[in-house]
């Protein structure tokens, strides 16, 4: 299984609908400071429900995840996976957050069919993608692993054992 495509719309610094194709193997991403590289990682975490808003550097919950560049009040990300079977079956996970009169709504979907976050997590788990996994290493995580206490470091093994 591999990521085939990212669709990012009005999420953080992605002011308008952006499609990023991905291929198997080794993809490197480069660009100046503040251009949006880490935000691409955040968009994957967002769509798959793998991290809190705070982990995505948003101090005010999901509100700060909506792009400030437009007057639109929603953000949407879809991750499309290729299941690597003979016929190139796809499975997509998407999420939309929207401003509502009472706050914000967060709606998940698998293959465009609405699901709960719990359902999304249990589906992802079948493919070995989990919130406390080590497949997504964010900027600063390595330094944290160096600087944390030895007790904290051991607890990471507790968590994955």
């Amino acid at each position, binding site marked *: 299984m591999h990521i085939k495509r990212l669709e990012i719309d009005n999420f953080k610094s992605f002011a308008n609908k952006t499609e990023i194709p991905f291929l198997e193997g080794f993809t490197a*991403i480069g660009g*100046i400071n503040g251009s949006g590289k880490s935000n691409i990682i955040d968009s994957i975490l967002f769509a798959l429900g793998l991290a809190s808003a705070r982990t995505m550097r948003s101090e005010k919950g999901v509100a700060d995840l909506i792009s400030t560049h437009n007057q639109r009040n929603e953000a949407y990300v879809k991750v499309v996976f290729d299941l690597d079977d003979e016929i190139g079956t796809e499975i997509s996970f998407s999420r939309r957050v929207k401003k509502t009169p009472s706050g914000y709504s967060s709606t998940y979907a698998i293959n465009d069919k609405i699901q709960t976050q719990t359902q999304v997590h249990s589906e992802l788990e079948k493919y070995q993608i989990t919130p406390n996994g080590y497949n997504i290493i964010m900027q600063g995580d*390595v330094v944290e692993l160096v600087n944390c206490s030895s007790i904290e*470091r*051991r607890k990471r093994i507790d968590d994955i054992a």
Partner: protein
Amino acid sequence: KKETFLKAFHEVNRHFSEIFTELTDGVGKLVLENPENPFLGGLTVEGQQKDKKKQKLAGMSGGEKTLMALSLVFAFQRYMPSPFYALDEVDAALDGFNVERISKMIATQSKLTQFVVISQRSQMFDRADRMIGVTQMGKGITKISGIKLQNSENSAENNQNPDK
């Protein structure tokens, strides 16, 4: 569940030692501060770079600590494999030669699994299959500026980043 912990610990330790040696030609291992009662102590790392004396994490250089931590991250990844990996600037403290070693390891692993790697270091891009350029249009709006296919080391001149 001490047994579950120790089973995981030994497997992670095995991966850690292999990876550390592949990256440094040295010898490294994870150390439980309290081996009989693991939950009463922490976890630290002991490494011995090629030709150097054994040293604990605290006394190592910035780059040596990063190599330790990266070896541990990669060990966790081999313990619980995933269909794709995303690494965001894990090479910040490394010298150019060590960035090359990490890049080589990723290139090898990427034959089986998808890797997406963000970096500011030219040596990381040298072995990538392709590069996605991320730029800002006015006002901080992200623009994906292009996807360059590479045949190792010959797309450097195309790139506008001065590190290349």
